[in-house]
């Protein structure tokens, strides 16, 4: 693994460090928090300055803002149904926050806050608590019927009910680990191939020529990561919508 004492150090990019000097250090303000603030600020700026002209024929920024808005609105209406429109602000916020977090992480020297399980699990728990509260407040006691579908033979109950409960409780876990693992795996892969470039580059006269290969792989990987960054934000939002559909309609 090592050449001339250099090793592949793929995981140190996820370490937290205090940001904003001594003030940040005293309140444990890390670069993860900094990038969350940047993402939130960028989303607000896009929505504010993009929609300010409110022109019939949109400019570039306005078209971008409207595309995101329409995309999320279609997602909610198609998955949850027309009565799910009141959940649109929640899903839209979640989608934009994760999308901007993933995309910001791809910039050089940036930090991906969605690569920390603490962040993604918090987001998933917000979704989980929301769907449970919505289901209980809409259906009351009938919500318990969710764990035993109507028409199933009663002697299957000892099998079906535990399975349904486990699958319900595993939702936040799978939701958070999917996003977190995708981001971590992508960034580790980029780092590993970037290290190959450095290691091969220091390998004598032919080294730099061979080092072009991992560099080309890395260029392709960055393109793939942009796709993954969008896809994971989309998957998180669409799964939230599917869970909301279950909560509103109970199967």
């Amino acid at each position, binding site marked *: 693994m090592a050449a001339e004492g250099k090793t592949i150090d793929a995981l140190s990019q996820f370490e937290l460090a205090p940001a904003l000097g001594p003030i940040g250090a005293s309140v444990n303000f890390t670069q993860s928090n900094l990038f969350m603030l940047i993402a939130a600020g960028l989303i607000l700026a896009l929505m504010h300055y993009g929609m300010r002209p409110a022109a019939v024929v949109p400019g570039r920024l306005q078209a971008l803002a409207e595309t995101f808005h329409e995309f999320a609105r279609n997602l909610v209406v198609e998955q949850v149904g027309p009565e799910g429109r009141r959940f649109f602000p929640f899903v839209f916020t979640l989608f934009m926050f994760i999308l901007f977090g993933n995309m910001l992480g791809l910039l050089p020297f940036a930090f991906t806050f969605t690569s920390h399980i603490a962040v993604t699990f918090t987001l998933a728990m917000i979704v989980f608590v929301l769907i449970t509260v919505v289901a209980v407040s809409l259906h009351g006691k009938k919500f318990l019927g969710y764990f035993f579908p109507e028409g199933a033979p009663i002697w299957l109950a000892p099998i079906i009910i535990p399975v349904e409960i486990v699958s319900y409780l595993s939702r936040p876990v799978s939701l958070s680990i999917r996003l977190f693992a995708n981001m971590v795996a992508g960034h*580790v892969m980029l780092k590993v191939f970037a290290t190959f470039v450095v290691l091969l580059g220091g390998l004598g006269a032919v080294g730099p020529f061979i080092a072009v290969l991992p560099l080309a792989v890395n260029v392709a990987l960055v393109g793939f990561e942009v796709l993954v960054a969008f896809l994971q934000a989309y998957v998180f939002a669409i799964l939230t919508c599917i869970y909301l559909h279950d909560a509103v309609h109970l199967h």
Partner: protein
Amino acid sequence: MEVAAAKALGAGIAVIALFGVGLGIGNIFSTLIATVGRNPAARDSVFPIGILGFALTEAVALFALLIAFLILFA
């Protein structure tokens, strides 16, 4: 057995799950292509479901990868 060797072997065994994931993703896209080929009009409604299935299947691969990383580095 030495611990380092056992760790490397364990990480290798953990990613055997990719066998099933490869089958699954191939299956999803072959069915998607067949569906769009038979009925091109269904493309818009079928494509998001296919992508969702791909992402859900890929997550299994990432769970396995995560376990491999945990064995190797944690």
